[in-house]
């Protein structure tokens, strides 16, 4: 894929500001943004299948219906499997407390070992910092403050998630017509630029979403293999759950790592080495991710300078919290492509003159 032209300083500033404003808007409308995002993810992963069926003689609508139906069956089966797994693992407030206690025990053992090995930690009374009362207070506050709102938020999102297959189906059948409909309203002078913009956006989004899926698969597989080698039960589930959590940059990876370490610390309280091995595995996978998987999948497609990526992530997190972290980079990529095209049109005297002349001609024709 050809690298997209990089925007100039003023355009870049406008692009950053627009991205921040959009992130703010996304945060307010997350109930709608989330299903659209998931639908886009499905659209870009299912579109090649629909196209292949069309080439083999199927009607686009029929092909889209079949593919969406299969996708819904797969999603429903996965949901049932996840629910079964959660009920088997006993995912409730009690089990959360059990895992937190497991983590707390690991922390106590680790700080004790550190105190014995490094005298300065003993003088700092490190293990007293993680006493039972502190952790219990933290756990209770966390459950009261976050667990209920998160559960309510999930319940609030559930109906909007039902939109996902619906949006995906119509994107698969009508995206070309929608595009033609939009292009129809573009003046002749900007027609080719508009088509180019659509093409860049499509390529950019397709590469991003397909890259994201490949990255999740690679990361999930690597973690699952690593965890099963360490001896952690349900390695496949935990590996892929951590890989999906990693969709939230930085924060997601940390949460995934903590989740697996807590499982290891609780299921194997007498073997703290397993929890440390999980920690080491996550650090290793993080390095493989940053230096091999990410450049091979998403990083290659976005063409955003690493410094700018970090800046956008910070800005995204500041403006829109977790939503900002998830959307900052893809949204910045999309807004940059739009900003660059608009800047080209605005600064192109020839195009603007052609547009003015065409309007005068159209007015003249109407009078005649």
């Amino acid at each position, binding site marked *: 894929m050809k690298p997209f032209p990089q925007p100039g300083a003023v355009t870049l500033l406008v692009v950053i500001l627009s991205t921040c404003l959009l992130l703010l808007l996304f945060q307010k409308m997350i109930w709608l943004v989330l299903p659209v995002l998931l639908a886009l993810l499905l659209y870009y992963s299912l579109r090649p299948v629909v196209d292949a069926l069309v080439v083999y003689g199927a009607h686009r609508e029929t092909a889209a219906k079949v593919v969406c139906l299969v996708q819904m069956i797969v999603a429903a089966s996965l949901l049932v499997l996840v629910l079964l797994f959660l009920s088997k693992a006993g995912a409730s407030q009690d089990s959360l407390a059990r895992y937190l206690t497991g983590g707390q025990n690991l922390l106590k053992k680790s700080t004790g070992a550190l105190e014995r090995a490094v005298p300065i930690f003993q003088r700092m009374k490190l293990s007293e910092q993680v006493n039972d009362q502190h952790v219990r207070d933290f756990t209770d506050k966390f459950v009261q403050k976050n667990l209920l709102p998160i559960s309510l938020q999930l319940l609030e999102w559930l109906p909007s998630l039902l939109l996902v297959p619906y949006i995906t189906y119509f994107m698969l059948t*009508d995206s070309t*017509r929608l595009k033609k409909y939009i292009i129809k309203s573009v003046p002749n002078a900007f027609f080719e630029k508009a088509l180019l913009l659509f093409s860049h956006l499509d390529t950019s989004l397709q590469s991003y979403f397909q890259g994201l899926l490949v990255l999740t698969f690679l990361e999930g597989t690597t973690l699952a293999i690593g965890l099963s080698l360490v001896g952690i039960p349900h390695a496949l589930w935990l590996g892929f759950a951590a890989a999906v959590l990693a969709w939230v940059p930085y924060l997601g990876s940390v949460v995934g790592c903590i989740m697996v370490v807590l499982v290891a610390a609780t299921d194997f309280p007498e073997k703290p080495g397993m929890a440390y091995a999980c920690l080491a595995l996550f650090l290793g996978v993080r390095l493989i991710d940053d230096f091999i998987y990410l450049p091979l999948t998403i990083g290659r497609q976005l063409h955003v300078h690493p410094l700018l990526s970090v800046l956008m992530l910070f800005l995204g997190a500041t403006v829109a919290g977790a939503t900002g972290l998830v959307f900052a980079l893809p949204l910045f990529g999309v807004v940059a492509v739009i900003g660059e095209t608009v800047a080209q049109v605005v600064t192109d005297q020839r195009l603007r003159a052609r547009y003015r002349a065409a309007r005068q001609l*159209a007015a*003249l*024709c109407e009078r005649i």
Partner: protein
Amino acid sequence: MRFFSAETNAQKVKMLKSIPIFHTLTRKEILEVDELLYERVYEKNEIVFEEGDPGHGVFIVVTGKLRADPGHQLLKTALLDIGPGETVGELALFDEGPRSATVVAIERTVTVALFQAEFSTLLMKNKSIGVKVLVELARILSRRARQLLQHEKHLPTL
């Protein structure tokens, strides 16, 4: 309201089939190509594209007439008026080089445009359509090359 409804009908298929680069396509293939075509209407004296513009696609005249005004003396001997069924800007389907002529509508003209990026995707997805369209495009380009050779006798024959 039929905002995003399919507009392809029998008349449109017939019209597209009458265009030389599509005349070997089957009805089903025409319907697939139609999804990638953008209809544009140009008023008399309206510029379609200018010499030096980056080319992104080919324009096929449906009704009306376009006139090409190439800057290069050699190209002035080639086809200058482009009527129904004829194409202009074919080279843009193969590269994004600058347009070699300014093209203006000399009467109210309806065109359909095929965009280079979408054409490339179609070639990858459906090789049958790709081969048929490419053969017709090659015919058009070779005919234009022969026209140039006839006018410029000193050019070597390939």
